[in-house]
């Protein structure tokens, strides 16, 4: 039967599906995300980097509607640029998170995106902020996106305070892998960004380099 409804990508909004995670370690933060962008049942981009820079040492992780999340990240990037010129130094992570929160709260009814903001600043070191639905809360770690539901238990059980950088990166990769295995809307490759006082390091972990678990 010929359908009048047309192609999916016209009627279905492009969502990032997603698993995103940010964890604070001793001296900085590690952010991680998968790379799948879906519109209905088709994947429109299998290599999207959902870790978007807001400033040199502040990144945000995108989830929810792709258009809404990208737009918020770009607007806040611009606002932070202006802000950091006005104060004459690098902005605080809390400022970036507040700017994101202000947009998410004001346009709460119209937007459907969740951004996790994480970074490093001189004053408070590594910080992770959740901005879901317009709240602003600092947390030692935050997970988000459709795949996060599958890994809340894992993260709650395995997280320890004061872990070192390499351990933290491995923890993030493990969590992403477990979520990508179970969630249909998450997949592709894993992007990992590590931010500390020395700088920002971006890494891609390809599909065949991800750790394997029980069912593989």
């Amino acid at each position, binding site marked *: 039967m*010929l359908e*009048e409804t*047309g*192609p999916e*990508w*016209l009627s279905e*909004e*492009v969502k990032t599906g997603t698993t995103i995670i940010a964890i604070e370690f001793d001296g900085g933060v590690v952010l991680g995300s998968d790379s799948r*962008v879906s*519109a209905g049942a*088709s994947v*429109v*981009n299998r*290599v*999207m980097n959902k870790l978007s820079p807001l400033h040199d040492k502040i990144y945000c992780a995108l989830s929810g*509607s*792709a*258009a809404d*999340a*990208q*737009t918020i990240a770009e*607007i806040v990037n611009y*606002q*932070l640029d*202006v*802000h950091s010129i*006005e104060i004459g130094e690098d902005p605080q992570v809390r400022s970036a998170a507040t*700017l994101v929160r*202000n*947009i998410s709260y*004001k346009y709460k009814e*119209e937007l459907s995106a969740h951004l996790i903001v994480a970074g490093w600043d001189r004053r408070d070191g590594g910080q992770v902020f959740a901005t879901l639905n317009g709240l602003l809360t600092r947390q030692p770690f935050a997970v988000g996106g459709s795949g996060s539901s599958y890994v809340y238990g894992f993260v709650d059980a395995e997280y320890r305070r004061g872990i070192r950088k390499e351990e933290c990166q491995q923890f993030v990769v493990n969590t992403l892998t477990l979520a990508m295995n179970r969630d249909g809307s998450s997949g592709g490759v894993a992007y990992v960004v590590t931010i500390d006082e020395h700088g920002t390091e971006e890494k891609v972990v390809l599909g065949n380099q991800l750790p394997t678990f029980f069912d593989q």
Partner: protein
Amino acid sequence: MATLTAVRPAFGGFSFDNCKRNAVLEVEASKVGCSVPAARKTGTTICGVVFKDGVVLGADTRATEGMIVADKNCSKIHYISPNIYCCGAGTAADTEMTTQLISSNLELHSLSTGRLPRVATANRMLKQMLFRYQGYIGAALVLGGVDCNGPHLYSIYPHGSTDKLPYVTMGSGSLAAMAVFEDRYKPDMEEDAAKQLVRDAIAAGIFNDLGSGSNIDLCVITKSKVNYIRPHDEANKKGVRVTELEALKL
């Protein structure tokens, strides 16, 4: 401190009232037994690929109005600037007017800066406009061009999200075309290989998707020149009519 908006009561902006009215009209019309006129869609297979010296954009040439082919040879590759072209899928009027508007604004911008426009600028302008209209402008675009930073290719969705990739497909035939790309794409291809790949991807869309058909148009953009090849390949030639006598002889 940087603030999101100046303190001012919200007025102006885009009014979505007509969309509600249209929904009501659709219900009323079906009660009486008639149907609202269908917007002409381009159905479509469009795609683009980045090769060694630039980008190749490709499109089919069928425009549909519901189940009828409204135009057998429409042009879906639109001019944005001398070094940037854009393929459009979705509602034909939306893609046409959106690309013309951004082309005009980009020319003014280019005169103001005194430089050749960049693909990233066109991308920003398009995505900000489409986001402002919250997906009601049904334009899905493949934007490609060569600027001072090299060749670039973007896909832009009706709600305003964009992806920057080495190869993209859009339209109802996008799955068929993407299958060809995923199989045969290699980075840094030569121009002829890239043209052949795009031609094959569009052909896959034409033969396997009902919303795409007719011929294949190509547009090859490099630093020095733009080659708008219309048509590149007449995949569906109309047969020659014969009289009954001649048909009996065949």
